[in-house]
C-alpha cells in the first residue's frame, strides 16, 4: 500500500492482503495479495473449485477469513457496504418466490434506505430505469417464475444497477444465458466501467474471457497471475492455472481438514 503524503488519493477500490479462506477448515484460497485499481473490468478465471466465488464472497464479508484482510476503498467492508453491488449466482435463489420483477429490483435500493423505511417514488424510478437498461421494463409486474434464464439474469443485473455502487461483484453472470442477454450484459459492463466503476466478474468461458475483460485474475486456490488481459492470457499461465491443481497444495488442504 503506497501512501502519498503530499496529496490525498482515494485508496484503491479493493485490496486483499494475505487472504486465506477455508470451508470446514479446509483451505480453498491461500495467501491472496492483490490490489485492484479504479475503473477496471476484471475477469476472474480458473477451473472448478479454484475458489472464484469464494474470493468475491470473502471480499464482501460473506465468509469468515482465516487470515489476512480485505479493504474496500481503504476501509473494512462493513463501513463501505453501500458502495458494493452484488450479482449472486442465479441458482442461489428460489425463483418461485412470490415477488414480481419490480420487487426484486427494488431490493437493490434497500441497502440505501436503512431499517424500516419503505422504497420511495424516487427509488421506484431508479428501479424502473435499471429495468429499462436491461430491457426488462415490460416484465416489471410479472412474477419471477415466468422468466427464462437470461431474463432472470437481467433482473439480477438490474437489481445490482439499482444499488448504484462503485464496485460490483458478479458471480457467473453469463452462465446459462442466451446470446442476446450475453451481449446486453457485456454492453452494460462496459458502460459501468466507462463511468469509473470497478467490476469483478467470475467467468467460466476462456475464449470469451479474452474479449470481454481488460484485465484477468487467474485463480487456482492461489493467485496465479493478475494483469492486463494481453499480458496474462498466455499459454504457460493458463497452463499453470488449469493444468491440474498443485497436487501438494490440495493434499495439504485435505490434511488440514482431517487433522483439525
Amino acid at each position, binding site marked *: 500500500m503506497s501512501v502519498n503524503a503530499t496529496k490525498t488519493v482515494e485508496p484503491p477500490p479493493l485490496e486483499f492482503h494475505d487472504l486465506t479462506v477455508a470451508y470446514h477448515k479446509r483451505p480453498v484460497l491461500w495467501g491472496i495479495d492483490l490490489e485492484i485499481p479504479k475503473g477496471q473490468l476484471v475477469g476472474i478465471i480458473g477451473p472448478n473449485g479454484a475458489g472464484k466465488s469464494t474470493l468475491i*464472497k470473502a471480499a*464482501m*464479508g*460473506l465468509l469468515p477469513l482465516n487470515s489476512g484482510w480485505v479493504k474496500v476503498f481503504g476501509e473494512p467492508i*462493513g463501513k463501505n*457496504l*453501500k458502495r*458494493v453491488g*452484488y450479482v*449472486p449466482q442465479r441458482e*442461489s*435463489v*428460489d425463483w418461485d*418466490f*412470490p*415477488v*414480481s420483477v419490480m*420487487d*426484486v429490483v427494488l*431490493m437493490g435500493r*434497500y*441497502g440505501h*434506505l436503512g*431499517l*424500516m*423505511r*419503505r*422504497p420511495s417514488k424516487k427509488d421506484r424510478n431508479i428501479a424502473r430505469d435499471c429495468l429499462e437498461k436491461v430491457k426488462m421494463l415490460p416484465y416489471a409486474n410479472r*412474477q419471477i*417464475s415466468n422468466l427464462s434464464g437470461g431474463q432472470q439474469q437481467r433482473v439480477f443485473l438490474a*437489481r445490482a444497477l439499482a*444499488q448504484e455502487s462503485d464496485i460490483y*461483484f458478479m458471480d457467473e453472470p453469463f452462465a446459462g444465458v442466451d446470446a442476446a442477454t450475453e451481449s446486453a450484459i457485456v454492453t452494460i459492463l462496459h458502460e459501468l466501467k466507462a463511468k469509473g466503476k470497478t467490476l469483478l466478474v467470475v467467468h467460466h468461458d476462456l475464449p470469451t474471457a479474452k474479449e470481454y475483460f481488460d484485465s484477468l485474475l487467474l485463480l487456482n486456490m492461489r493467485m496465479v497471475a493478475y494483469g492486463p488481459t494481453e499480458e496474462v492470457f498466455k499459454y504457460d499461465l493458463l497452463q499453470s492455472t488449469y493444468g491440474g491443481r498443485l497436487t501438494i497444495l490440495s493434499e495439504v488442504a485435505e490434511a488440514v481438514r482431517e487433522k483439525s
Partner: protein
Amino acid sequence: MRHLPFIAGFCLLAAAMPAWADRIGDISETSVIEQAKRFFSFRDPSVRYALIGSILLGISCGLMGGFIVVRKMALFGDTLSHAVLPGVALGFLWNMEKDPVAIFIGATLAGLLGGAMVALIRQTTRLKEDTALGIVLASFFAVGICLLTRIQKMPGNKGGLDEFLFGSAASIGRSDIILMAVVTGLAVLLVGLFYKELLVTSFDAAFARAAGFPVNIINYALTLLLAFSVVVALRAVGVVLVSAMLITPAAAAYLLTDRMHRLLGLAALFGLISGVMGAFISFLTTNIPTGPLMVMAATMVFALAFFFGPRHGVLMRWWRQKSRSARVQRENTLKAVYHVLEAREFDGEGVSLRELAERRRETLDEARAQSDALCKHHMATLHDDGDAIHLTPEGWQRACEIVRNHRLWELYLTNEAHIAPDHVHEDAEIIEHVLGEETVRELERALNHATRDPHGRAIPGLADLTSGSTPFGPPETVTGYASR
C-alpha cells in the same frame, strides 16, 4: 411414523383421563342458528374468549406461516411446535398450576432449545437438516409425553393438561387472551415495520447480507416470533396439530397469489377463518377437541384454493387444457375441410360430411359432432339437411391460417434446419396451432415469402385469409405481407 411416541403416550393418557375437553359452555339451544347467534354475539364470557382467541391465533399463525412456507421451513415449524411440549410440562411443574405465563416461558424456551439442537446436529455432523429435524421432533415430544403422563398421576393435580395435546378453545381464559393479543400484536407490528428486511432475507440471504442487513438477527427474531405464535396457539390447537395452522393457511394463500404482501394478508385471513370455524364447530358438538376441527377447516380452505384457484387451481388448469384441446380439434376439422376443397381444386363451396369423415378417417357421427362444434363457434353452417358443411368467413380465415402455419413450418424445418421432408409433418401438426402472427411473419421473411411447401402444395397467403367472403378459387400465387 414420527407420531409413534405420541400414540404410545396418548394411550396412557387415554387410560388415565377418559374425558377429552369440555365443550364451550353448557348450552342447550337446539337450532344451529340460535347457537351461531350465541357464539358470535360475544355474550357468554367463555365463548367470547374462545372466539377472540381463535381470531388472534389464526392471524399470528397465518402471518408466521407465510414466511415459513416461502422459506421452505415447514418441517422446521413442525419440529419447533412439537418441541415445546416438555416446556409446557415444566412450566406447569413450576407451581403446579396452569399459569399461562409460566407455561408460555417454558414452552418458548423448549421450542428454541429444539431449534438450537437442530442447528447443532446439522453443523457438527454430516447429517442433513431433515434428519436433524426428525430426531429433535421425536425426542422432545417423547420427553414431553412422559412428563405429562407423570403429571396426570401426581397427587393434588388439578388436571386438564391433555388440552395441550389436542387443543380446547373452551379452556382459553382471560390471561391467555392477553398473552395472545400481545403476541399477535407484536407479530403484526414487526412484520409491518420490517417487511422489507424480512422480504429480502427470505428471498436472497446472501444478497441481503452483502447489502448490510443483519441477516442472522432477522432470522433469530423470526424464529422467536414463530415460537411465540406456536406457544400462544397451543391451548386452542394443541401441540400435535399446531404446525398445520402455520402451514396450511399459508399454503392455500401461496396457491392464490404471486405477491408476498398479499400472501401474508391472505394467510392471516385464512388462519382467522379456520380458527373461528374450528372453535364454532367444537362449540356445536361435544367431545371433539378444537385442534383437529381448526385444522380440518384450514384443510377445507386449502382444498378450495387447490381446486378453484383462478391461476394455479386444478379445475382451472383442467378447464384450460380441455378448451385448448377442443380448439385444436376444431382447427383440425377446419384443416380437413380445406384439404377436401383443395383436393377438388376449390370447386364448389360445400363439403359433405361423408367427404369430411373419409378425409379424417372417422365415422359419420364423429364428423357430425365436429361440424356441430364448428357451427357452435360460428366457423361453419350446415346445409342440405345437415349433410354438408359451409365455412363462414371466420372459419375460412382460420382454416387458411392453420394450413399456412403447417406448411410454413414444414418448409422452415426442411430449408433452414435441414430436416428431411418426410420427417416434418408430425412436428408441424403441433406447431400449427400455437404459432403467433408475429412468428409467422418472421417465418415468411426467413423463407423469402415462399409459395410452395416441401411437398409442392401451395401455401395460403394473406389474400386468401382476407377473401373470407368468397372462399372460392385456388390460393393466390403471391404470399406474404410485403406485397400488400
